[in-house]
């Protein structure tokens, strides 16, 4: 077990940002361009962030009322054993599906750009083995890992932004604020899901015992704000380099944007490979967080044993290899979004309401 017992605010911010930024940063530009269809699409991210900030209040309220309890323990404390089990089951299914989705898209990207001829199950399997090794030692080590790689991720993003400036055509981003505002706001239904990850406040709660509501809110809003900032910058660059019409058609827009960076004879002549390594870490961190949730959930629902980690691995692997191609994967994403809303908005909201009605807290 790790020696990490209590997270600082900074560590918490790092956990949130690392788990929020994942495959969303690669896939979101295309979905957003198709929905909003305007140069203003980056505005939708801000609306999405606002929506998420509101939802995050539910988590903070729960975390304050039940300090030290994870989501899985909370459910039975609030709803009773049977309903709690159902809630846990649903949340476990949600983590399983999201973990498999992240893994499959990551595998697709690795196969497309890096390991052309390696079979998918090797790519996906080895990715997961590393993650399992990290989870084996518990939440403390996961946080340490996030902390270790966070600067690398940030440097990679900043370098990508700086190198893209040469290709940036601001005329592609213009005109600003001319789109129908309701269409832009409706884009929030897509951007909302790229902020998935703030629910880990209720998962890493063993490490967040002594925190005040105000501090937690500031922490969450800072992480959401920083993530939104990164997203907005990336989207403006993506539009500036590729144009909105082109974004609609590119499978992995952000990677193509990195691919259009070229400095002849310079070390960065092919920058997208370096960027991919940096990005893979972010995908790895979000995947690890979800797999940890899955393992934790399984342990809470049944008699805890060590064997739930491999079980979680097998479940994820099976679900990852189930879709035939990326077309099916992207097709499922609509259903995944529905499940996500149920799992991370409706369930915690219900918990909070029932808890308020019954007036019980962990402290009493």
């Amino acid at each position, binding site marked *: 077990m790790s020696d990490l017992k209590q997270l600082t605010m900074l560590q918490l911010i790092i956990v949130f940002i690392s788990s929020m930024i994942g495959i969303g940063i690669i896939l979101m530009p295309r979905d957003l361009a198709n929905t909003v269809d305007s140069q203003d699409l980056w505005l939708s991210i801000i609306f999405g962030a606002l929506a998420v900030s509101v939802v995050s209040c539910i988590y903070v309220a729960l975390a304050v009322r039940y300090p030290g309890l994870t989501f899985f323990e909370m459910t039975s404390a609030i709803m009773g054993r049977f309903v709690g089990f159902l809630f846990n089951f649903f949340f476990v299914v949600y983590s399983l599906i999201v973990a498999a989705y992240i893994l499959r898209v990551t595998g697709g990207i690795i196969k497309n750009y890096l390991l052309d001829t390696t079979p998918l199950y090797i790519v996906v399997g080895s990715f997961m083995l590393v993650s399992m090794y990290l989870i084996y030692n518990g939440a403390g080590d996961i946080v340490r890992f996030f902390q270790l790689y966070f600067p690398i991720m940030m440097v990679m993003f900043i370098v990508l932004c700086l190198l893209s400036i040469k290709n940036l055509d601001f005329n592609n981003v213009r005109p600003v604020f001319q789109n129908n505002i309701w269409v832009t706001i409706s884009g929030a239904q897509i951007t909302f899901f790229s902020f998935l990850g703030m629910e880990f406040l209720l998962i890493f709660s063993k490490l967040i015992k002594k925190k005040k509501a105000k501090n937690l809110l500031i922490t969450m809003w800072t992480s959401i704000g920083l993530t939104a900032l990164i997203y907005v910058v990336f989207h403006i660059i993506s539009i500036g380099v590729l144009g909105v019409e082109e974004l609609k058609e590119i499978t992995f827009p952000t990677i*193509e944007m990195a691919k*259009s960076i070229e400095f002849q004879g310079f070390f960065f002549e092919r920058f997208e490979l370096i960027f991919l390594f940096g990005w893979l870490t972010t995908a790895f961190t979000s995947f690890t967080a979800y797999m940890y949730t899955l393992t934790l959930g399984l342990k809470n629902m049944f008699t805890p044993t060590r064997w739930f980690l491999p079980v979680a691995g097998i479940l994820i692997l099976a679900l990852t290899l189930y879709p035939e191609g990326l077309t099916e994967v992207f097709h499922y994403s609509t259903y995944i979004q529905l499940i996500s809303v149920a799992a991370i908005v409706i369930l915690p909201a219900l918990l909070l309401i029932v808890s308020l009605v019954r007036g019980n807290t962990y402290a009493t």
Partner: protein
Amino acid sequence: MPRKVFFTSWILLFVLTGCWDIKEIEDVGIVTGMGLDFNEETDELTMINQYVVPARIPTQQSSSQHQSDPYQNISQSGKTFFEIIRNNSLESNRPPNYTHLKSILASTALFEKERADQVIDLFIRDHEFRRTTPVYLTRGPVLDILNTEPAKELFPSIQIKSLSENFQKNNQNPTNLSIGDMSQLISEDKSFLIPGITLNEGNIKSSGAGIIEAESSNYVGWIDVEDMEGVRYIHNTVQGGFIYLDEEMVQEGPIILEIKGSKTKFQTKVTGDEPEMTLQIATSTVLAEDWGTGRDVYKAGWKKEIEEASNNVIQGKVERVLKIAQQEYRIDFLDISKWIQIHEPKYWKEHEKEWNEIFPDMNFNVEVTTEITDFGTQNFNTEE
């Protein structure tokens, strides 16, 4: 303990297998240039791959004796490009690798027969091709150009690309169009220009540009090298070059002004349903060459006449290109629509579909202001 050792060595067995499918760089057929053409006889596509032959690249030791060309062009015909690439392995022992592709040269004949969006599909779909590879167009046979021995570069395909790097020095050089830009313009439903290349007495020469029309995605016409200057002003890509003023335009002449920088501003106005555009071109120049003898640059007022003449020259060039676009081809290959979209978003949303009918009858005003900032290190004034 033995279990741990066993486990570790078992893992190592998988991790340290390393390079079992290693490919030596010498054994990879690096392709620097690609030619796309249409074979009229067989009614098939033709693709030329320019392979590097590393052994024939002259080194410092052996540079004295003449060697044969360090490249090999393999030209094949087929129904699709992918098929041709794979059929290359019937002729070449080295599998082609396109990660270092420097230029793609297509013929107008190909774009007359096939749609541009269909032609470039493979090059934007396959991850081995880069979005930054520039595309060029030629009116002659592609193979002839790729077979020309370049003067300063080793490979014709690299020579083609290097020419376009002169765009800061000469206004008549078209700026590069990468395959990514091309894909962007196609998905935005815009007509556009592809930089042109011709063979001139055995030399590769940059010359004008070919027009691809949006709707048919076909080649429809050619912009001559003289008209490229106007295009560059409208595209707002002028960074250098010169303005030639002959004796008819200035009293003492001819005069050459070197362009130090230029900026084009677009102002739009919509009156009723009629859009109108004003192009404000501000050019900063210096006196580069003066064949007139009686000019006193130390006396105020010498600039005025030259600046006015230069204004007229630039205005004439820009208006000529606009006339070609509006009257001859009746399509907007100059990306004028972008400025309407930026400045008049409401109008653009309503009339986006009818742009092809609106553009030919649009009113353009061209306003040029040239300023001469410098005259050089010495000035002959013999008529005193």
